[in-house]
């Protein structure tokens, strides 16, 4: 006697009635699959809608192809957009963070782009990294501030001429109460006292930047081997970050640090750090621009790099650099020195 019950797959469907149609879809099909697997002959007894479900498989080739085509067109389109975004004439420059964080390059960039009809891409990094990029040919021109390393870079054949274009001074900042008592000492004497005292914290950039090079130079002038300073104790903190974050860290830890004038002034309002030592010939901070040598990197954009050097040392731009930030900070951030080494 034939069973009066509906086949399993229909029972499942009936049991799920009232639910949104997409929900039982999977179970319905799975139940159907089970049923068909158990009784292959059942296929011929299926309702048309169930048969269509499987017959649809046959047309899937066209559908898949269409989908792949659509996606491919989309990708090509987006790649095209990206390619269109890539400018034809491009000059890539790496600048030291202090010139970037003070907003100087944000101010000068549009002027240069307009004058020479070029896309100037400004990358910011410490002097060490900027020179590394230059050496590898990833940038066309660098603006950095570490004389000894710049001279080495040129001597190694990676750069053309070193053209100084502005300068200011480094300063040692620290907590107002000056726990180590180094106020108004010379930078060298101040560092000696920090080392002997060994209790007041000092935050070092520790990132191979121009400021870090200067700090090492002062330690050397003070008569210490930098390796000894690094291992002198927990008071000496190697941050390994940019100037802004280093200042913030010194502020949080109420420590001393060596900073360039520009970055200090632009962060001053958020810091409880005051200038402690700001006089001494060793604190001179010269920014110079160096084009990458085409002999080292044949594909470099030397023509436009030279344009940038002309631009930076032009009378008009030198004047603007001298005035930059005066209104906002009440003092000069950079002293222009077109092409000549300041004394």
């Amino acid at each position, binding site marked *: 006697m034939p069973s009066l019950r509906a086949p399993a797959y229909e029972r499942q469907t009936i049991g799920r009635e009232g639910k949104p149609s*997409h929900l039982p879809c*999977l179970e319905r*099909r*799975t139940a*159907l*699959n*089970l049923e*068909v*697997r158990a009784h*292959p002959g059942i*296929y011929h007894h299926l309702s048309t809608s169930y048969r269509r479900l*499987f017959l649809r*498989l*046959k047309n*899937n*080739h066209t559908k*898949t192809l269409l989908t792949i085509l659509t*996606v*491919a067109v*989309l*990708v090509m389109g*987006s*790649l095209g*957009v*990206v*390619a269109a*975004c*890539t400018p034809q004439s491009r000059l*890539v420059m790496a600048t030291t*963070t202090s010139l970037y*964080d003070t907003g100087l390059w*944000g101010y000068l*960039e549009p002027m240069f782009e307009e004058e020479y009809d070029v*896309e100037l*891409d*400004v*990358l*910011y990094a410490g002097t060490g990294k900027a020179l590394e990029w230059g050496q*590898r*040919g*990833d940038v066309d021109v660098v603006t950095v501030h570490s004389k000894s390393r710049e001279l080495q870079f040129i001597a190694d054949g990676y750069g053309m001429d070193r053209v100084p274009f502005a300068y200011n001074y480094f300063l040692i900042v620290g907590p107002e109460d000056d726990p180590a008592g180094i106020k108004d000492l010379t930078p060298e004497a101040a560092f000696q006292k920090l080392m002997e005292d060994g209790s007041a914290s000092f935050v070092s950039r520790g990132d191979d930047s121009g400021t870090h090079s200067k700090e090492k130079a002062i330690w050397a002038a003070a008569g210490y081997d930098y390796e000894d300073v690094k291992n002198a104790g927990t008071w000496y903190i190697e941050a390994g*970050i*940019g100037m*802004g*974050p280093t200042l*913030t860290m010194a502020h949080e830890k109420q420590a001393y640090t060596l900073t360039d004038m520009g970055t200090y002034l*632009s*962060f001053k309002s*958020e810091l409880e750090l005051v200038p402690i030592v700001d006089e001494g010939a060793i604190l001179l901070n010269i920014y110079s621009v160096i084009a990458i040598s085409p002999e080292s*990197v044949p*594909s470099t954009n030397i023509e436009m790099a030279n344009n940038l050097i002309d631009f930076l040392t032009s009378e008009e731009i030198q004047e603007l650099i001298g005035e930059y930030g005066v209104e906002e900070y009440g003092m000069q951030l950079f002293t222009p020195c077109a092409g000549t080494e300041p004394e």
Partner: protein
Amino acid sequence: MTELWDGFTKAIELIVSLDPEVMQIAGRSLAFAATSCVIAALISLPLGSIIHFNNFFGKRLLINVIQTLYSVPTVAVGLFVYVLLSRSGPLGGLGFLFSPPAIIIGQVLLVIPIITGLTITALSGVDRTVTDTAISLGASRFQAATLLTREARFAILAGLIMGFGRVISEVGLSLMVGGNISGFTRTLTTAISLETSKGELELALALGIILIAIALVVNITLNRLQQR
């Protein structure tokens, strides 16, 4: 705490006023992430299916490796792509470094393991009988695979969502190979990193909130798609 609140109000302000620079940066973030996800999906979906549907020596090991790569650090991928695209590197001639294609290449490499791995997981989650039945009904291997992929589409979409989340939130790679160039390769995450280092915490927080808002909108849209 006031900084958090100020960041929040600033975010609302920037969104409501449709600040052109922020909108541009957000649009760029979204475009980079979407492009990389689409390209990665085109590679990963077939790759995942091939690995799932074939049995070969070392399959288990391969899957383990893929799953380990879910957590590869973004800076490691960044360094790899940097060395590859640097002018003195093997693909230096393309001139891609510090431009959008470099970021997209890096992001694609970053998410391929995620989408491939989750595709394999999704396909393994489908009842075996579906393939068996399709084949018993005369479906070719390709048709059976297509059917199985259809059954697993929600789980695969979840993999895509995860991949998207990974690329839109990464910063190490974009910073390293994109260079955070204003108006060219600056994305939300690299802008946050820059503004933080400049001490503009409010703006940085606001950008972070905008990033979360974008992720939310994308997720809601994809979830809608899932439920249809």
